[in-house]
């Protein structure tokens, strides 16, 4: 009997960590095949890509804690990237009348504001009209995409990719933070670290954070306990929107251009990362550290597969399977045995 119990426990551990086991095995294989995968430049590359995708995951994490989701994220990143790239440029195609690039802090505030606005629309519809976040963010996703396309048609741009960004914008984002043995670490890594700390404080140290978890785990009880459920939901979505705005701002300079496809499918990566990192769809469960680990793991596996020259089309399939298996494992953890 005891042996059977033991066996079951081992099985439990294996299944609950199936995801990590697969990733670990894959990393070992990749390292054997291509030792340079664990080289310094490769590691720095993984860390900076993780940093680039972290803010958006931090934003979506809050929505998932509320048992919701946000699939408008990628398009909001696209819109804010286009806005940044159109204002902080040397070739004024969207606004032909502009003489010089707009001030950097102003643009940053503007894109954060745009993100917050979309987040407010999402949050308000979810909180006030009790629509499912999936439906709401699906429609805002489409609306934002339409706005991007129209925005890119403005002036003399005619839908082209925006490039020719100003130097101080590019250096503000991609400039060298410090170098380790000749490998440069870009500045946006620092920004991602700052955002992570800020989000950790918001989630763990503020009334809003505690309320968010309460609403996520039992909305009815939260209402009875005197939590302002509507405000909490709206604020979670607005905070997420701000994160997308910042991501857009960073991404414009990181990729050195912005077009209608910038940010496409970012939300998929972010949601996958959150679920891998233990932010549960059960609601009311999640940690910032988990999200960071989730983004990092996802980045490691995909950089590794890229090292093996696995085709991008196959990566999509693998990504989809990873989301499925992460959900199944997540569900398993909270399922009561019958």
């Amino acid at each position, binding site marked *: 009997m005891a042996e059977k119990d033991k066996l079951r426990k081992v099985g439990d551990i294996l*299944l609950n960590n*199936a995801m990590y086991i697969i990733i670990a095995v894959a990393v070992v294989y990749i390292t054997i095949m*291509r030792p340079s995968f664990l080289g310094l430049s490769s590691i720095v590359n993984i860390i900076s890509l993780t940093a680039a995708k972290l803010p958006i995951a931090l934003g979506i994490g809050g929505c998932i804690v509320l048992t919701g989701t946000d699939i408008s994220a990628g398009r909001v990143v696209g819109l804010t990237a286009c806005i940044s790239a159109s204002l902080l440029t040397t070739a004024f195609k969207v606004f032909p009348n502009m003489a010089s690039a707009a001030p950097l802090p102003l643009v940053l505030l503007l894109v954060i504001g745009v993100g917050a606005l979309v987040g407010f629309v999402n949050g308000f519809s979810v909180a006030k009209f009790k629509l499912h976040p999936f439906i709401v963010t699906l429609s805002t996703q489409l609306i934002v995409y339409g706005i991007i396309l129209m925005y890119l048609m403005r002036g003399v741009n005619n839908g082209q990719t925006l490039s020719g960004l100003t130097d101080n914008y590019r250096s503000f984002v991609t400039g060298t933070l410090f170098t380790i043995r000749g490998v440069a670490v870009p500045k946006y890594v620092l920004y991602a670290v700052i955002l992570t700390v800020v989000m950790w404080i918001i989630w763990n140290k503020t009334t809003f954070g505690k309320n968010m978890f309460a609403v996520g785990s039992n909305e009815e009880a939260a209402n009875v306990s005197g939590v302002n459920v509507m405000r909490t939901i709206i604020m979670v979505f607005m905070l997420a929107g701000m994160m997308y705005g910042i991501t857009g701002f960073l991404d414009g300079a990181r990729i050195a251009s912005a077009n209608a496809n910038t940010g496409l499918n970012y939300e998929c990566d972010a949601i996958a990362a959150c679920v891998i990192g233990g932010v549960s769809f059960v609601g009311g469960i999640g940690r910032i550290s988990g999200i960071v680990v989730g983004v990092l793991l996802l980045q490691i596996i995909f950089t590794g597969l890229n*090292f*093996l020259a696995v085709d991008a089309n196959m990566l999509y399939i693998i990504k989809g*399977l990873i989301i499925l298996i992460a959900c199944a494992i997540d*569900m398993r953890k*909270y399922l*009561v045995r019958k």
Partner: protein
Amino acid sequence: MEEQEKNYSKQRETAPQRQLRGLYAKVNISVKSLNIIILVLAAAIVVCMVIGVSNAGFIVQFDTLGGTAVESQKHMYGEVIESPEPPSREGYVFDGWYLDQDATRPWDVDNDIVTESMTLYAGWRLR
């Protein structure tokens, strides 16, 4: 203390109702079938990775934008492309390969390394 802990976990297991909420509120599945699902998905991921690795290689395509056709190439990560035969086009002079159609981001054929599947566009100058 230990016994107390034991008691609590026992209570949890005999709880008469499921306590899932959120997106899983309507999930009605046994742990056993979930185990099978997880194993099947894990196997599927491994299979996809194996297929991906065995078909490894990034396809580099060349779009000559109206010039003579150039055959696509397959490369592993970190390789440089083999310099293809320069295409020709009536009334234009070929001036190298670019990452975009507008010929703004040039590709250094001898030094740039392949990191993903991509299409290179020919740059043309009026003769």
